[in-house]
């Protein structure tokens, strides 16, 4: 890689890093106190995973002067973040949102659209010129993005039966779903060497990172008021 390419890659990962740091620090200030919901703490930890992944990726590019296309630890950051988002939605929130009523069945099924879209975005990567190792790494990332996207979409469309939990955080759930979608698109664009598209997705992702935690704070504050 030339110095210019290195600087460009560092610049764009830097943009993602700064926005993720903003969200992470804001989340720590707002949610890491006694009595604050574990759901919000887990989401903040997810943002922390993004921060660490981008720090690693920037340093690796800066030190080795090349972008590692196969497996690298930075990939684990996305996987870890998705695992945190999934844990927050499935482990912490879903029991209160979905009691297993038959009337909610259609929402449960409709929510499968999100992982399906993720899968559709991934499929072309199988036929790109990237190495088999990169294809597998991308697939593993998508495997973790899929379930997280399922619950983001489910909590976006499911009606609040009586508890009033999902309505206040619908805006946040939409942003989280968009993060998962644009992350997938960015990975796809990188696999097809679509640099311009990747840059656009990076900028959109940065904006989404910045607004996610403030939106979550707004929603969660309505929980605590009830």
């Amino acid at each position: 890689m030339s110095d210019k390419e290195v600087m460009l890659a560092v610049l764009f990962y830097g943009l993602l890093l700064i926005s993720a740091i903003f969200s992470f620090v804001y989340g720590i200030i707002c949610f890491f106190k006694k009595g604050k919901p574990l759901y919000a703490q887990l989401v903040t930890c997810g943002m922390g995973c993004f921060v660490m992944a981008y720090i690693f990726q920037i340093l690796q590019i800066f030190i080795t002067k090349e972008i590692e296309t196969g497996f690298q630890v930075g990939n684990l950051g996305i996987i870890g973040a998705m695992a945190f988002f999934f844990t927050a939605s499935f482990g912490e929130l879903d029991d209160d949102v979905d009691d297993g009523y038959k009337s909610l069945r259609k929402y449960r099924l409709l929510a499968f659209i999100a992982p399906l879209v993720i899968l559709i975005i991934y499929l072309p990567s199988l036929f790109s010129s990237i190495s088999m190792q990169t294809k597998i790494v991308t697939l593993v990332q998508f495997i973790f993005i899929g379930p997280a996207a399922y619950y983001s979409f489910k909590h976006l469309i499911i009606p609040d039966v009586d508890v009033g939990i999902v309505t206040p955080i619908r805006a946040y759930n939409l942003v989280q779903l968009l993060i998962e979608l644009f992350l997938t698109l960015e990975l796809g664009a990188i696999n097809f060497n679509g640099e311009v598209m990747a840059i656009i997705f990076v900028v959109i992702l940065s904006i989404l990172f910045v607004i996610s935690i403030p939106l979550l704070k707004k929603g969660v504050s309505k929980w605590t008021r009830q």
Partner: protein
Amino acid sequence: MDTTIVSLFICIAVPLILVLFFLEKKAKQTILFFILGMFVCLYISGINGLLLKAFNSDYFYVTTTITPISEEIAKAIPIIFFAYVFTSDRKTLITISFALGVGFAVMENAYLILNNDDISIAWAFVRAFGAGLMHSLCTAAVGYGMSLVRERKKLAFCGTFALLTTAIIFHATYNLLVQSDLKVLGFILPVIAYVPLFIFNIVKYIKNKKSAPITK
């Protein structure tokens, strides 16, 4: 495996094991996990040697990508086991995690001293602060998280995995930095992560002392 390092482990671990029977529960747990940390280091050094061979002795790739994964998983297993079988008490889990991390770091530093001729007091300080803190913090993060996720079964699997990935990335970033021109930054990284926690604990301690009733 190198007999010198095994001998070193025996020399440190045996007296500690013998003293275990005379200690109180908390001290016993701490010492036990310190020994366990040293054992994990000994065990994983053998595994890492095999991994290095498997990856054509590409030392940089293995230490920045593979060993952080193997080491963090090996360190997390005893903590996860303890959290699931015995207790989810946060204080206990953090204490034993720190002890395990420190045990691991002590053994690793001892191993490096034995295999490195170019040792200085400055090197020792840098290793002690850098690797010592890094290993303890990574393991403590898993311990802290286990206390959160252990109580809810639905949180457990993914939560544990997510915490492990966090520890792995932190470890890999440290390994990446210490092998580059940004070495100093690598040794500062664990200190940067440690200082806020240290200040937080001190503030908490002072607050607790102030609010505690005075007893004669």
